[in-house]
């Protein structure tokens, strides 16, 4: 027994002819169905080109509009011709003109010879099928589809909606269980004959004429009535995008296709010279095939769907610009915002870099310029330290910074002196962790040596800005992780919040006992706050800061010897 191939052709007929010849030369009779809509001139060219091959025949031509029964009718006609004219055919393989055998024809023949009674056809009940796109799976069998999906989309959709509204349901012929599957199958002569001569066939045909995309269900359902042995998988590799449109294989897929375990692949781009040249090499002359790795193909295509639908989080570019609810407020990786720490510790940045193994920047949003780690004038990716460039689009600036440093945690200092435009974005980003010591802005003012009277207006202004910031952090739509300590709380025992900070930013960081940054000496700060009060300002954000006397008492002091080096 041999293998017969039914080729459904409508475009790229020169390629179809090449493939038909390849099948025929390896002893497989071919019946070509040519779409009625192909011009006569092209048909006669094809017929002439294949005239020297006695085992290539042509079946009655039907115009095959996608999604209609015409495609099934054309297949039936071609199969009938195949069974009638080639009695030696034991299996019939349904392929299209853009299918390409990617393994030696001999291997396929051998595989079928070993399974002479097996029908290779994907056939799955509608409840179990996961790949139908557009919501029409069971409804393919229970609604009517008189309108063309391609040409009359509105009528099509409207009529579906109307039938749903009216709860219209067609009756499925008794004894028939709808199954779906790839339209590319390989059936035994026995099963195919049984389907084509089934006593109920006129009834089934009448039913399937109003089913949506019957080429994915006609044979798939009927084979269940007649077959003794079904292997529910297609021998043809075909991949679909997320909207159910077939992927095309190009020359650069050569290596991938060589690793497939399917025997035929579709669709092949007609101009993929390398693929045609490689896979249409006669069986004897072929290079040995690498080990099959179909999982790799599946992974690659699954990744493409993910790239198209989800994209790369935190990337904002010419063809990905998500709106706020769709990831427009999420940067590429976790990062830390330190508010009020640099004011309290002389060596905070180097300490933090050591402790959490991160890139620690200075004030990225300072008014004069961007203070990158190491005071670089240009940072990774070409980010400039120009404040004007940054402020022109602070979101893009920060998004680029985090994107450019994927794989490395970024931290930066922030305070009420800085440009605040970025804040709503920061607080809305689930990747941000914001650590705040409230009221720390007053420490540098105090250490500047200026009198409370001189700095009072500036202090009041900073306090107002910081209060607005805290209010923003408290809003319910804040997505960032937030930790807040008042200055008084913090200085009481700095080791604990610092440890928390390290744990939050890098849970796997090794604990380094005793390695803590040096807290500035705050003796005298309490009096400064009192001075501010005396000048008429109300410094509230610092918390209940201890007076100098309390600070001086060792048993209440925050600066226990094991904490400060």
């Amino acid at each position, binding site marked *: 027994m041999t293998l017969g191939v039914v080729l459904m052709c409508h475009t790229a007929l020169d390629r179809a002819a090449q493939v038909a010849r390849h099948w025929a030369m390896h002893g497989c009779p071919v019946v070509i169905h040519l779409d009625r809509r192909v011009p006569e001139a092209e048909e006669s060219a094809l017929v002439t080109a294949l005239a020297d091959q006695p085992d290539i025949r042509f079946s009655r031509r039907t115009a095959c509009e996608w999604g209609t029964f015409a495609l099934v009718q054309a297949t039936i006609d071609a199969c009938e011709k195949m069974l009638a004219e080639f009695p030696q055919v034991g299996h019939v393989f349904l392929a299209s003109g853009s299918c390409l055998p990617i393994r030696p024809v001999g291997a396929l023949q051998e595989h079928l010879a070993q399974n002479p009674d097996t029908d290779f056809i994907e056939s799955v009940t509608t409840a179990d099928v996961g790949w139908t796109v557009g919501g029409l799976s069971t409804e393919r069998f229970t609604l009517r589809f008189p309108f063309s999906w391609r040409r009359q989309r509105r009528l099509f959709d409207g009529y579906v909606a109307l039938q749903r509204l009216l709860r219209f349901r067609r009756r499925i012929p008794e004894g028939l269980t709808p199954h779906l599957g790839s339209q590319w199958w390989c059936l035994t002569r026995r099963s195919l004959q049984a389907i084509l001569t089934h006593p109920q066939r006129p009834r089934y045909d009448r039913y399937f004429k109003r089913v949506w995309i019957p080429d994915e269900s006609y044979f798939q359902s009927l084979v269940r009535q007649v077959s003794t042995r079904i292997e529910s998988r297609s021998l043809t590799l075909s991949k679909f*995008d*997320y909207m159910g*449109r077939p*992927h*095309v294989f*190009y*020359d*650069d897929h050569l290596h991938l296709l060589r690793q497939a375990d399917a025997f035929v692949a579709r669709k092949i*781009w007609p*101009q993929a010279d390398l693929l045609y040249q490689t896979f249409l090499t006669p069986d004897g002359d072929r290079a040995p095939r690498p080990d099959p790795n179909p999982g790799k193909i599946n992974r*690659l*295509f699954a*990744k*493409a*769907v993910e*790239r*198209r*639908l*989800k*994209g*790369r*989080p935190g*990337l*904002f*570019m*010419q*063809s*990905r*610009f*998500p*709106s706020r609810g*769709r*990831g427009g407020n999420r940067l590429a990786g976790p990062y830390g915002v330190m508010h009020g720490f640099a004011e309290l510790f002389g060596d905070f940045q180097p300490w933090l870099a050591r402790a959490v193994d991160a890139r620690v920047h200075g004030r990225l949003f300072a008014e004069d310029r961007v203070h990158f780690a190491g005071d*670089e004038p*240009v*940072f*990774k*990716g*070409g*980010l*400039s330290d*120009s404040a*004007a*460039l940054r402020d*022109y*689009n602070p979101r*893009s*600036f920060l998004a*680029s910074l985090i*994107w*450019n440093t994927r794989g490395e945690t970024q931290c930066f200092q922030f305070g009420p002196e800085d440009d605040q435009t970025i804040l709503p974005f920061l607080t809305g980003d689930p990747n941000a962790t914001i650590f705040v010591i409230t009221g720390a802005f007053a420490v540098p003012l105090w250490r500047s040596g200026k009198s409370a009277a001189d700095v009072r207006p500036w202090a009041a202004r900073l306090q107002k800005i910081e209060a607005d910031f805290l209010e923003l952090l408290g809003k319910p739509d804040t997505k960032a992780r937030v930790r807040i300590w008042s200055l008084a709380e913090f200085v009481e025992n700095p080791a604990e919040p610092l440890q928390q900070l390290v744990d939050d930013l890098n849970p796997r960081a090794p604990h380094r006992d005793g390695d803590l940054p040096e807290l500035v000496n705050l003796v005298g700060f309490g009096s400064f706050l009192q001075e501010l009060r005396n000048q008429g300002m109300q410094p509230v954000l610092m918390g209940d800061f201890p007076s100098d006397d309390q600070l001086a008492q060792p048993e209440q002091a925050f600066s226990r010897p094991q904490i400060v080096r």
Partner: protein
Amino acid sequence: MLCFFCLRSEAGRLPHFLSHHRALGVRHFLGVDNGSTDGTEALLRSEPDVSLWQTRASYKAARFGMDWLTWLQMRHGHGHWCLTLDADELLVYPYWQTRPLPALTEWLDRQGRQSFGAMTLDMYPGGPVSDGNVGPQDDPISHLCWFDAGNYQVQVQPRMRNLWIQGGARARVFFAETPRKAPTLNKTPLVRWHWRYAYVNSTHSLLPARLNQVYDTEGGELTSGILLHTKFLPGITDRSAEEKLRGEHFGNASQYAAYYDRLISDPVLHTATSTRYTGWRQLEALGLMSRGGWI
């Protein structure tokens, strides 16, 4: 597959420009020559697949050449995929070496898309811009092999629904204090043309506005490309002096005087953070362009 361009004195770039896009599958070029003086005309006339129109009228008054090209597109572009480029732009896109433009446009057709975005990427040399020697047949990218990988500003312009992308080397070096004036980098150079369409502002945006939506707003990525910008070839300093005198550029002339002066002073655009170009897969990995769902 048609390619429209408008140029003036680009004999140094043209041979490679034509061969690059010819290899991508451009079937015919339709060019407008705006008073070249360096043999560009003779060069174009000797090419069998170039149709040439000539004018000495004002480039600026013709909306920077767009009026001329719009007419050609209306007459000859209808129904075709049309690529509209400057002579200093080289289009690359995912898999461009193995999948010529007809493969890309067939994929776009299947996705129901009529336009394709490709951002301009300023390519620059490792030293002063006037250094080096690049012949007309040479691949300019072997000399201009550096670019800025991640300093672009993106915002939506609601009126035309296009993204407005600025940044890159020119913004960093020439517009650090006036970033709003930095050149626009987003482009939509590849469109399945209809006679009713028109580019509005170079190829940065076009009408109808839906064609500008070459980006996904749901979080996913659409397929996009890159226009490798070969502006910074060694002739740039002389050219800038000439352009400054001609005053046929966007916006008002005084705005651009400082920019041209900086260019004439032979700047170095390269920094330690510059990235060396290795190919489209690198641009894709850096997130400058995307293969989208095309595999």
